[in-house]
C-alpha cells in the first residue's frame, strides 16, 4: 500500500509550551486510523497540522506527495483535496444547506453552479437529508448538521478525510446516524484519520489506533493489538476509563 499521509518527527510549540513532541506515523491509502487520548493530549492539534490549519515548527508532513510545511505549497489547493469534519460542524450559518455544499465547489474548484448543486444534492440524498436542502444550518439538529458537514467535505472529491471528534458535541441518540455515514465511507475505501472516543467504531471500522498523551504518540498499532494488550500504562488507564461506560 502506498502512503497517503506521512507524519515524520513533528514537533510544535505554543510559545514555551510544547503541544506535540516528535510525532511520527502514517496513514496508507484506504486505511482508517483512529486517534484517541486524554483531553489536551494534542489530538486536534496533530490532525490540524495535516491540512496546515496549524503550523508546526519541526519535522515534516507529506500528504499525497506534497509537503505541507513547505512554504511554496499551495495550501488552499491542498486543503481542497483533504476533507475535514469538525467537532462543532462549522457549517456556514448564513448560507442554506444547498449553498453550503456548493460554495466551495464553485469558488475553489471552479465548477459551474448547476453541476455543484446537483452534486451537493446527490450527496445530501446519500446522507439522507435531501428534504432539508433549502433550510439554513440553524434549523437542523446536531446530527443532521454533522451529516451535512460530511457531505460538504465529500462534495470536493477529497483524496482523504480528517475527522476531529465528529460525534462528541452530539446528543447520544444522534451519534449513530453520523457513525453510520462514517462507517459506510470507510467501507467504500476512503482514507480516514479520525480523532474519536467512540471505541465501538474504532473496533469495528478502524485498521489502526493511535494513542496520544501529552503531545507524544504513545501507541500506534493494529486495532486488535490495541484493544488486546495496550503496552503503556497510560493507554490501559485510558481504555479502562472509557470502556466503563
Amino acid at each position: 500500500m502506498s502512503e497517503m499521509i506521512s507524519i515524520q518527527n513533528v514537533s510544535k510549540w505554543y510559545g514555551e509550551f510544547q503541544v506535540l513532541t516528535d510525532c511520527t506515523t502514517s496513514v496508507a491509502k484506504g486505511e482508517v486510523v483512529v486517534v484517541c487520548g486524554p483531553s489536551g493530549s494534542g489530538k486536534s492539534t496533530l490532525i490540524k497540522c495535516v491540512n496546515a490549519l496549524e503550523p508546526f515548527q519541526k519535522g515534516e508532513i507529506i500528504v499525497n506527495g506534497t509537503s505541507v510545511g513547505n512554504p511554496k505549497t499551495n495550501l488552499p489547493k491542498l486543503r481542497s483535496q483533504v476533507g475535514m469534519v469538525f467537532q462543532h460542524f462549522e457549517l456556514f450559518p448564513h448560507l442554506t444547506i444547498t449553498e453550503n455544499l456548493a460554495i466551495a465547489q464553485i469558488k475553489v474548484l471552479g465548477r459551474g453552479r448547476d453541476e455543484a448543486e446537483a452534486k451537493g444534492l446527490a450527496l445530501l440524498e446519500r446522507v439522507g437529508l435531501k428534504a432539508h436542502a433549502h433550510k439554513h444550518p440553524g434549523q437542523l439538529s446536531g446530527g443532521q448538521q454533522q451529516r451535512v458537514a460530511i457531505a460538504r467535505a465529500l462534495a470536493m472529491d477529497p483524496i482523504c478525510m480528517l475527522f476531529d471528534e465528529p460525534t462528541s458535541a452530539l446528543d447520544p441518540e444522534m451519534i449513530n446516524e453520523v457513525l453510520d455515514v462514517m462507517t459506510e465511507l470507510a467501507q467504500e475505501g476512503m482514507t480516514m484519520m479520525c480523532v474519536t472516543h467512540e471505541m465501538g467504531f474504532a473496533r469495528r471500522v478502524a485498521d489502526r489506533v493511535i494513542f496520544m498523551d501529552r503531545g507524544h504518540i504513545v501507541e500506534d498499532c493494529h486495532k486488535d493489538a490495541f484493544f488486546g494488550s495496550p503496552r503503556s500504562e497510560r493507554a490501559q488507564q485510558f481504555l479502562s476509563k472509557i470502556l466503563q461506560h
Partner: protein
Amino acid sequence: MNYNWDWNIFFKSTGIGDEIYLDWFISGLGWTIALALAAWAIALVIGGLLGVMRTLPNKWLSGLATAYVELFRNVPLLVQLFIWYFVVPDYLPEQTQVWFKQELNPMVSAYISVTLCLGLFTAARVCEQVRTGIQALPKGQANAAMAVGFTLPQVYRHVLLPQAFRVVIPPLTSEFLNVFKNSSVASLIGLMELLAQAKQTAEFSANIFEAFTLATLIYFTLNMSIMKFMGWVEKRVRIPGLMVEGGK
C-alpha cells in the same frame, strides 16, 4: 418675566428676502443630512477595511490599523476638525490652496473639511465594531472555511464578512446616529447646518425655547426613524434558525 411665547415663529418672515424661519431649518437639515451621509460613506469604507486589517495575521497591517484607531479615538473631534479646517489646507499645493481658501464657496470648503474629518473620525469607531464582529464569530468558522480550500480573501468574502455584517448592524446603527449628532460641530466653523440654523433663529427672533425645541424634535425624529429603519433591515437579513440577540 416678559418672554413672548410664539409657536408660530417658524412661519414668520426672517426679515431677509421672503424667507420664513422654517426655511432656515429645512436648509439646515439638508446640510446635516448631506454631511452625515457623505461622512458615513467614508467611515464605512475605511472603517471596514481597517476592521478587517485588525483581524489579519499580518502584524504590520494590524498594527497600522491599531495605530489609526488609537490616534483618531483619543483626540477630541473638535481638535480634529480645527486641524482639518485650519491646518491641513496650509500644507496643500499652492493652487489647491488658493482654490480651497478663496475660489470655493466658504460653505463648500467647510463642508469638505467636516465631511473628511467626521468620516475619518468615525472610521476608527466603525473599525472597532467590525473587528469585534469578526472576532465574535466562532473560531472554527475560519478554520472550516480554510479547510474547504478557500484562500484568505475568500474566507473573508464568503464566510466571515457576511456573518460579521449581521452581527455588526446594531452597533453600526448607533455609530450612524452618532455621525448625525457629531455633524453639529460643523456649526463651529460656520457651516449652517441644523444646529447653526437653530442658534441663528434663536438670536434673530429671541424665541430661544421654540427654536431649540424644534431642533431637538428634528434630531429626535431623525434618530427614531433611523432606528426603526435599521431594526427593519436587521430583521430582513436575519439568518433563519440563528438567535440574533443574546449571541449563540
